[in-house]
């Protein structure tokens, strides 16, 4: 038994210990505006609907430029803001994008697009 053998074992185990627990720190989505935006939406004295729309549009443009994904629900939320601002066509477009990116949302987006016409004013 020599010293370098122990040293090798310690170093190898140390590396294993350090790498074993890290599970991909890279986030799945580009989170900037979505959650603060949702919080603002629920407050009466926060930013205006137009400001909230602008923040999300900027976030989406930036995510596209960086080829990162936007979080689930963000396009639908932008659709809600467009609907509130009376921009129905753009609202529907966003619900369609949400459905396309996340098929899990299909029934709800269809509900918003068809059965519930004008419900989100």
């Amino acid at each position: 038994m020599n010293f370098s053998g122990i040293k090798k074992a310690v170093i190898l185990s140390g590396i294993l210990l350090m790498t074993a627990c890290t599970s991909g720190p890279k986030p799945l989505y580009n989170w900037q505006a979505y959650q603060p935006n949702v919080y603002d939406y629920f407050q009466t004295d926060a930013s205006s609907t137009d400001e909230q729309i602008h923040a999300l549009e900027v976030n989406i443009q930036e995510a596209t430029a960086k080829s990162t994904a936007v979080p689930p629900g963000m396009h639908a939320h932008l659709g809600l803001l467009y609907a509130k601002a009376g921009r129905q066509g753009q609202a529907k477009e966003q619900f369609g994008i949400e459905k396309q990116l996340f098929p899990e949302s299909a029934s709800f987006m269809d509900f918003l697009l068809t059965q519930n016409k004008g419900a989100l004013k």
Partner: protein
Amino acid sequence: MNRFAGIFALLMALVMTGCATPKSYDYTAYKQSRPKSILVLPPQNHSPDVKATYSMLSQVTFPLAESGYYVFPVAVVDETFRQNGLTEPADIHAVAPAKLRQIFGADAALYIDIKDYGTSYMVLSSNTVVTADAKLVDLKTGQLLWSGTATASSGEQDTSSSSLVGMMVQAVVNQIAHTITDKGHEIAGITSVRLLSAGHPNGILFGPKSPAYGKD
């Protein structure tokens, strides 16, 4: 060479047990259901602070989506309930799972109860605490898949750590830091990450959009 083998074996044992999570929670129903999408209902607030429900609701998407789930747009969902005359979280929590599934097409619903939300002022310092419970329910069967509780406090020592949850806590604090100075909201974000992040003992499992899906 025997001693080398002995030391290596001992260190390997450390490596193997270092990350092992004591799984006392029974995940049988969860693993059978394997939900892909989660509908978060507006949390019921049992604290005196009226801001608690929406402060919490606006921060649940991050940990759940990063854990690999499709999370329904919380504000659009809330608005849909409102359009149908449901404005109180207690009434929304009472809607039948089958009805929720019919409208939203979600695999599972998350029911959150806020136990504590607020700041207690003391002579020398103040302390903001947010505590919440959550239940994940299969909307096809109405079966409970998981339940958990978490708390966070402004009085804690530095929460930075190299764990995944630690990094996510930092990320959520950074999201808020440049937007508003609202201590309750900040602490609610940390509570939300602790409550709803996969990858720690007795927590939710990773969802299908996560690279770690099926490995827990």
